């Protein structure tokens, strides 16, 4: 299955999306990511029962914080798919790539780069 | 069936504790009638005196409410003074929400200095219902402890702190009871507690569910409480089916049976008020016969002009002269 998908993201593997925490998402932005998306199993299909529900809540919390500090909560999103759905994974990454490009770069990164240039 | 004593007989019996007109009428054996007068949200005394004038010949005493529903109003004590100055008998309502024990005792002395000699002890609605939701509440004492405080000041001539009072306040003390609030099993024990604290008369919550009230009275009699305290049944005429529904659904601790709502809703809008008055009169007539009911407290909220009609049609007029 050769699927076209953007090459500008890094995959961070987790045993379950339930392992993700708000701080992981924030750290990604602190380190310059323009967007973060979390891909979990279909709701109701979690091997650990509620991991993906927890992940969704944490993504929502992170979005709230990003909104309040002016980075933008739309830069983080939760998706659900089952393990066999390669094409859907590709579609989600295209969708996210498009959205982040519309939003432009992470303002924190922009500010840091500007500062570096000035120095 | 009621045995009535003359005032001379009563005075000779030595049973009078105060010069309260309500105490005299109740102890003489008459069915007493009280009503109430909500002070205004302003400083015009006419708002009190005009309401009082509407009902003065038809009631024995007039309650003045104390910032009812936690909405800031002219103080109850000032309103009582206006009523007293008209030559009428006020009942000072006092809630424990807004004043600590210093202020409560002080206001009692102030009231007694104007010969205001009847009062009702309440805890008061929570401030979240009123216009000062962000305010503190005090509740240094609760309503039962306020009853104890007044009785101690009157009977022992002592402040709560133990010091003697010069000219103790001679005040006839009442309390409220809600026969319909939950849990029902302790409604009578709770009345017993108020009596044990020293309550001498009771004004109940508005009664619409007569069967439940009569059941409560049966239990009251079972414990002999009706012989220790004068129970005045609370009556509020309904103005409309809308008001009946509001009372049923929105007012905590209010029991309005569906039949009552149906009956009012069953007549045309312009006749609903009259139907409400009729229900009130019929209720009084039925409850007059209940052993242990010593009178009626008619709370015609912003409808004081209807009190004379209710009193007259209920056979409670003319009022005894004392």
């Amino acid at each position, binding site marked *: 299955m050769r699927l076209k998908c953007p090459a500008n993201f890094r995959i961070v593997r987790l045993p379950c999306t339930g392992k993700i*925490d*708000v*701080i992981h998402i*924030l*750290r990604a*932005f*602190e380190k310059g990511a323009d967007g973060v998306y979390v891909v979990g199993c279909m709701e109701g299909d979690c091997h650990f029962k509620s991991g993906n529900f927890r992940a969704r809540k944490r993504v929502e919390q992170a979005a709230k*914080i990003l909104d*309040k*500090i*002016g*980075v933008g909560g739309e830069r983080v999103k939760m998706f659900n798919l089952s393990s066999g759905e390669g094409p859907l994974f590709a579609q989600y990454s295209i969708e996210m790539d498009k959205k982040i490009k519309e939003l432009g770069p992470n*303002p*924190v990164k922009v*500010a*840091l780069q500007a*500062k570096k240039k000035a120095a | 069936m009621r045995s009535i004593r003359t005032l001379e007989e009563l005075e000779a019996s030595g049973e009078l504790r105060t010069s309260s007109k309500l105490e005299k009428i109740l102890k003489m054996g008459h069915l007493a009638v009280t009503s109430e007068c909500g002070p205004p949200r302003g400083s015009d005394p006419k708002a009190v005196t005009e309401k009082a004038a509407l009902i003065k010949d038809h009631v024995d005493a007039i309650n003045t409410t104390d910032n009812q529903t936690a909405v800031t109003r002219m103080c109850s004590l000032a309103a009582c003074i206006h009523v007293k100055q008209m030559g009428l008998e006020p009942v000072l309502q006092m809630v424990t*929400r807004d004043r600590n*024990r210093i202020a409560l005792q002080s206001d009692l002395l102030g009231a007694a200095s104007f010969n205001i000699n009847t009062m009702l002890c309440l*805890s*008061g*609605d*929570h401030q*979240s*219902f009123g216009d000062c939701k962000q305010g503190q*509440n005090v*509740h*240094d*004492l*609760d*309503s*039962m*402890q306020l009853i*104890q*405080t007044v009785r101690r000041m009157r009977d022992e001539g002592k402040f*709560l702190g133990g010091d003697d009072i010069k000219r103790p306040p001679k005040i006839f003390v009442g309390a*409220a009871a*809600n026969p319909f*609030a*939950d*849990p029902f*099993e*302790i409604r009578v*024990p*709770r009345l*017993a*507690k108020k009596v*044990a*604290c020293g309550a001498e008369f009771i004004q109940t*919550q508005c009664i619409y569910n007569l069967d439940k009230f009569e059941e409560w009275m049966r239990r009251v009699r079972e414990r002999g409480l009706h012989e220790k305290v004068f129970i005045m049944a609370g009556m509020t005429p309904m103005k409309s089916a809308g008001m009946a529904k509001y009372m049923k659904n929105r007012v*905590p*601790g209010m029991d309005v049976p569906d039949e009552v709502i149906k009956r009012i809703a069953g007549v045309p809008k312009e006749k609903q008020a009259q139907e409400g008055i009729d229900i009130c009169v019929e209720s009084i007539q039925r409850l007059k016969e209940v052993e242990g009911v010593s009178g009626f407290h008619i709370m015609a909220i912003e409808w004081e002009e209807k009190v004379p009609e209710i009193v007259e049609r209920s056979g409670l007029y003319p009022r005894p002269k004392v």
Partner: protein
Amino acid sequence: MIIASKKPIEEIIQEVKDYKRLLILGCNECVTVCEAGGKKEVEVLASALRMHFIKEGNEKKIDEKTLERQCDHEYLEEIRGIVDNYDAILSLACGVGVQFTAEKYHSTPLIPGVNTCFLGANEQRGMWTERCQACGSCILARTGGICPISRCAKRVMNGPCGGSSKGKCEINKELDCAWQLIVDRLRDLGRLDDYEIVAPIKDWSTERAGGPRKVVREDVQV
């Protein structure tokens, strides 16, 4: 334990914006358990504040540290060596911890990062409810183990008031009527007769009304 809730991040930003070097100081006790001011909350707040101020062109030094407790001398001593590296401390401890830290480091401004709410229990995951108002003279033995001071909106000592309806309080249909709970429990304990004992007028001098309080135990002093 002491229950606190996080302050809104906008409020914190306003309070700290003029300090260049900031230490966010968490506490490992109550505020960790109620998820308002432990190590995790310190990390998240630090990250958010760093990003915010970089974006605003107002980059700050924001460091993180979480102490075992902020209400004890010995743990607070742990930051003595570093405290001068900061223009202010943003403490996520309860009001006790914030004040004790302020007393100890007199010349460093202290900013609270949480609102201290009440003494409560972890009723269920993500929900904490009040149980005690620290009145200083416990009456639970007489009220079926349920406190009318902390759980009745009018702290009625001889309740319930007329606003008790179907087991709930008049101020909020979700709130249990404390006196309904007391009556239920007294009944279950076979002690409903105790209901009729009138609670005496309370001595509030052991409560807040009596002024700041102190417990002294000479037997454990060294």
